């Protein structure tokens, strides 16, 4: 009873926070000309597809009390592998299978470094991001940073086309990723372990939960969502661009989605609802700023302000629990 009494105010504050987010959305909708149209909704969905996929992977990692700074590098690595294979004439299904194998290896590498070598997630994935970028850009592309994809290639046509009129492949894949994330977090044993690890890693380990194996599952899942994001992005723009890793702000946006959606960076809480709220806010913010013709710099400033506000709010709603915090935590 005492525990429940303590939880009530937190739930109430969370409810108020979500209400605030909905109000922000509603005001944005009302203020921006051209925003509240069906066509614009389609553009928002299409432009957000890759961000949703990456955010699903990142959210699962964060809930397990981890962080995957290599997720954007994995995205570009996956797109590069697939593009090179189809460019070499390999049939698309075979190319996809081979690429999935490569991504599983990359995810496994991250998971192994964190679970077995016991390197903090932030450092392990930062190192693997550099390794992956360097290996693919200089080892495989021989210094090229940009790979152009012919829009006439059947695989590219499929990935940027429609499943049926009104539903594009990127949006369908986005839905599939959200569903897979929900199943993983809510219906699988691994999902329950993910929450236990995030809530109190040492306790989860001491109770005999397979925390090492689940860590590997989590990072492999993140790598696979990164692959889907890479395929969708490269097919849409007709390019695989390594500057997305080196100069882009995509990683920042992926973390922003999780924090803004209410997933605490110290893990253990959050779910699909939080991802959807975070995405909705970021997608609306991006779309609104583009419609309002804000410069890229102004957009970065606003996004930075939003992230700082979200982190401050996160600290307020999810105060640090010194009993479960360990060295290396965020």
């Amino acid at each position, binding site marked *: 009873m005492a525990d429940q009494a303590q939880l009530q105010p937190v739930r109430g504050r969370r409810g108020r926070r979500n209400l605030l987010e909905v109000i922000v959305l509603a005001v944005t909708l009302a203020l921006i*000309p*051209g925003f509240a*149209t069906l*066509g*614009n909704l*389609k*553009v928002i969905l*299409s*432009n957000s597809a890759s961000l949703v996929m990456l955010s699903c992977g990142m959210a699962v990692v964060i809930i397990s009390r981890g962080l995957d700074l290599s997720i954007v590098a994995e995205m570009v690595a996956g797109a590069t592998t697939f593009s090179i294979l189809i460019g070499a004439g390999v049939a698309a299904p075979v190319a996809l299978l081979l690429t999935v194998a490569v991504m599983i290896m990359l995810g496994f590498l991250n998971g192994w470094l964190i679970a077995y070598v016991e390197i903090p997630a932030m450092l392990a994935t930062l190192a693997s991001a550099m390794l992956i970028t360097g290996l693919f*850009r200089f080892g495989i*592309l021989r*210094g*090229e*940073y*940009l790979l*152009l994809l*012919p*829009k*006439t290639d059947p695989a590219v046509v499929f990935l*940027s086309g429609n499943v049926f009129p009104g539903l594009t492949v990127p949006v369908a894949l986005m839905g599939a990723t959200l569903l897979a994330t929900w199943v993983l977090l809510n219906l699988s044993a691994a999902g329950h372990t993910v929450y236990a690890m995030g809530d109190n890693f040492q306790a989860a380990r001491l109770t005999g939960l397979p925390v090492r194996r689940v860590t590997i599952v989590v990072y492999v899942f993140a790598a696979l969502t990164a692959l889907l994001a890479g395929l969708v*992005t490269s097919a*849409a*723009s*007709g*390019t695989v*661009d390594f*500057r*997305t890793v*080196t*100069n*882009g702000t995509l990683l920042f946006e992926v973390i922003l989605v999780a924090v803004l959606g209410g997933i605490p960076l110290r893990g253990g809480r959050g779910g699909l609802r939080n991802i959807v709220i975070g995405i909705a806010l970021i997608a609306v913010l*991006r*779309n609104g700023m*583009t*419609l309002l*013709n*804000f*410069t*890229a*710099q102004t957009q970065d400033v606003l996004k930075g302000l939003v992230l700082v506000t979200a982190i401050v709010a996160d600290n307020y709603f999810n105060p640090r629990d010194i009993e479960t915090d360990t060295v290396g935590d965020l």
Partner: protein
Amino acid sequence: MVHITGNKLRRLAATIVAGACVALGFGGSAQAGSDIAGKKVIFVPISMGISLTEGWARRMKEHAAVYGYSFDIRDAAFNTGAMSELLAKAISEKPDVLVVHNPTVQLLARQIKQAESQGIKVLQLNLQSNQPSNAFVGANWTRIGNDIAEDIVKECGAGSGKSGKVAIIPGQLTAADSVMMNDAAFKVFKEHPEINVVSNQASDWEPEKARQITATVLQQNPDLCAIFGHWDVHTIGAGNAVKDAGLEDKVLVYATGGGDTVTCKAIEDKVLDRVWSYDADGQGRDAATVVDLLLQGAQSSDGSMLTVESPLKIIKAGPDYDPSLCWKM
């Protein structure tokens, strides 16, 4: 010592010198070779791995091999922080000539001044800094911005029956090309109130960002008449958004670029419509020639920057399309 009088070394002079170098140099018996052999040149590009910089480097390497001077490349790989460090390291090595490719007008200004104060000659390639140096080889961005804007006015302005709506997609708002092209274009548009710039958002040179901006702008302005992308590489993303929206026959996609075969392929695929090419291969030859001259001590009589303006090629889709205007790496 070669001493060049006059304020600017213009295109004609460069072409003549380049022709002479080709005629003499590639025969392996150039007179200049004996003077400049053993000297040191360092090239610090924004990034290798793009046709622009690879094309330049190829020509400069050819000249270095013929005349016997060393030519090193320090690849910043699109990392501006790394670029400043690489340039600092290059300056500390005291080369005879530094070739720099400025990502913004301000970033390397102090270091260019520092290099020149230490007696190192600095050639700026295609993108200028606020800080003048010994020489500049590259496109006349003001002219390109003006010419493209005038073409847009012709296609979208009064009497065209079009909406007059234009979206501009710069690379970075502080990059020299974007600054100058936007200034020139807006001067033209100011005289034509029927032209309405509905969007002017930088893509950070990324095709995917350009695609997302374009998809949103097209949704809000389905009667958009033209897109002016400041670089063909990122404008390919914008062109793909136009194509995905099924508007490739209604929206004109303009770009500038080095004009290699990828540009022509994009025009053939109806991703781009009109590209003002500054011919990176020719620029590479001009840059190599100016490096040769700087190594021989060339300078203007009044100490101002020697300038070689790159000739332009306009590659257009349609009946006048000519794939021979593009060069192959």
